[in-house]
């Protein structure tokens, strides 16, 4: 699903955020990405999300080399990926339903399909009763789940999560993580950046550990 070959990322000014990263995450796998802040977690996710581009090496997503991809192609690759952010990035002038429907509208689904799929996603995340509410009236955990519903509604092949439990208490965090496990069980690849080591250790998934831009653990066996 994701393959990095000798990937380095140097920002203008000379700071090298990632150096010589090699890893391969199989289709349908789930893995955690850990490390101190500044270790390069976000940069690695941005390379996968095509927000940043590797200065050296090759990034292959779903069999497609995206290292020097054309700008016109980017939206179509992003549609294969569901993003979950720490700041969830919901649109506050729209209802929960409209927020979750956004990826489907972008992809050009028919009106009837949109309703059906959005309700299915909201149902899975226990938010069906909240579809008409505005995000601002929801709790932090509920907002995060709306963000997850939006990420999965399009049935993406890959879920990317950047500190999805960063603002949540331990119980909610565990609940969110088990949701990711559920999606992984139905074949979605999941990559989660998190520094919540205690929580990660209770879950039996491979861990990619970044330290100052380098992969500290060899995780080839795990992924």
């Amino acid at each position: 699903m994701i393959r990095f070959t000798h990937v380095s990322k140097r920002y203008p000014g000379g700071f090298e955020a990632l150096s010589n990263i090699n890893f391969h995450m199989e289709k349908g796998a789930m893995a955690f990405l850990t490390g101190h802040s500044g270790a390069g977690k976000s940069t690695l996710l941005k390379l996968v999300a095509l927000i940043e581009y590797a200065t050296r090496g090759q990034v292959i997503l779903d069999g497609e080399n995206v290292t020097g991809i054309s700008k016109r192609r980017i939206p179509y690759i992003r549609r294969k990926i569901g993003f979950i952010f720490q700041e969830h990035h919901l649109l506050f002038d729209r209802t929960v339903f409209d927020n979750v429907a956004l990826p489907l509208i972008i992809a050009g689904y028919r009106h009837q399909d949109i309703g059906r799929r959005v309700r299915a996603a909201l149902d899975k995340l226990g938010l069906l009763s909240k579809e008409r509410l505005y995000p601002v009236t929801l709790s932090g955990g509920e907002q995060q789940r709306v963000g997850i519903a939006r990420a999965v509604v399009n049935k993406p092949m890959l879920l990317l999560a950047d500190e999805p439990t960063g603002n949540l208490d331990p119980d909610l965090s565990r609940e969110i993580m088990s949701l990711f496990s559920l999606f992984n069980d139905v074949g979605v690849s999941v990559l989660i950046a998190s520094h919540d080591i205690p929580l990660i250790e209770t879950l039996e998934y491979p861990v990619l550990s970044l330290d100052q831009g380098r992969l500290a653990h060899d995780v080839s066996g795990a992924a």
Partner: protein
Amino acid sequence: MSRGRKNRRQPQHHWQDNLRRLLSPGTFVQRHAQVALDSLGRLYRNWIPTVMTAAVIAIALAMPCGLYLLLGNLERLSGSWEGQASMSIFLKQDITDTRAQALLAQVEEWPEIESVQLITPSQALEEFGRQSGFADVLGVLEENPLPYVLIVLPAGEYIDPVAAGTLRDRFSGLPETELAQLDLQWVQRLAAILDIAHRVILIISVLLALAVMLVVGNTIRLEIQNRREEILVTKLIGATNGFVRRPFLYGGIWYGVLGALIAWGVVEAGFWLLSEPVSRLAGLYRSDFSLETLPVQLLGILLAGGTLLGLLGSWLAVGRHLDAIEPS
């Protein structure tokens, strides 16, 4: 990695899938209608700034439109005079009444001529006396000094300067003619002035059209800045530039349409305010002239122009500012 080659085909498949979905007529129309309505709803929710922007556009559109209509009315008026643009043929002093009548009968047969009227010296003297107030003084004259005059109205196609000149030369060539005089000159001067006015209005129109585009462009630019977060999120979840652009382009179109509709109201109101004094003035000239207001075609042009300018203006803003917003 053995899957690599096989999977490389998948993006294309995905792309074709997307294309099929986008081009299915129901979806295509549906999503455009949806975006158009969404944009309109957004303008409606913030109706005060919307109306203010639309009013600026309306004034800029109403100006050339109103001027153009005024000019059209003026041309209609001068056109009705142009029909009366006549030629005066003064006959020689020694022409007798029988000869003048014979000439009249002869000239009436000419194809260049719409109508011709013979004014006898006594009629002319009487009219001159009446109009000048010198009737008493004129009574002292022993002999009428005025000649016979033919007042010639050229047929429609002989009104233009060249043909009228030829017709005058034909009259000059007649042995009975003392002097053939064209009364068209002032009409031609008026036409020249109106031509200049046309040009001026064209220049004003172009400048104001530019102003409309800039107003719409600036409004849309602000709108883009306000919705920066939304643009970032939609780009991040796979929106194409076209998708992100669309609501702003529709927004620009709505501004243009609203501006055109208000402009129409402004022009109608302006002409309504003018109509009463104009018909009073016309009454003083014993004319039943009245102002003609916006014909349907011009309303169509106004709407189409507003739409186009709105679209172009927003296109300018979108092209410049949207690409700059990329997730980071």
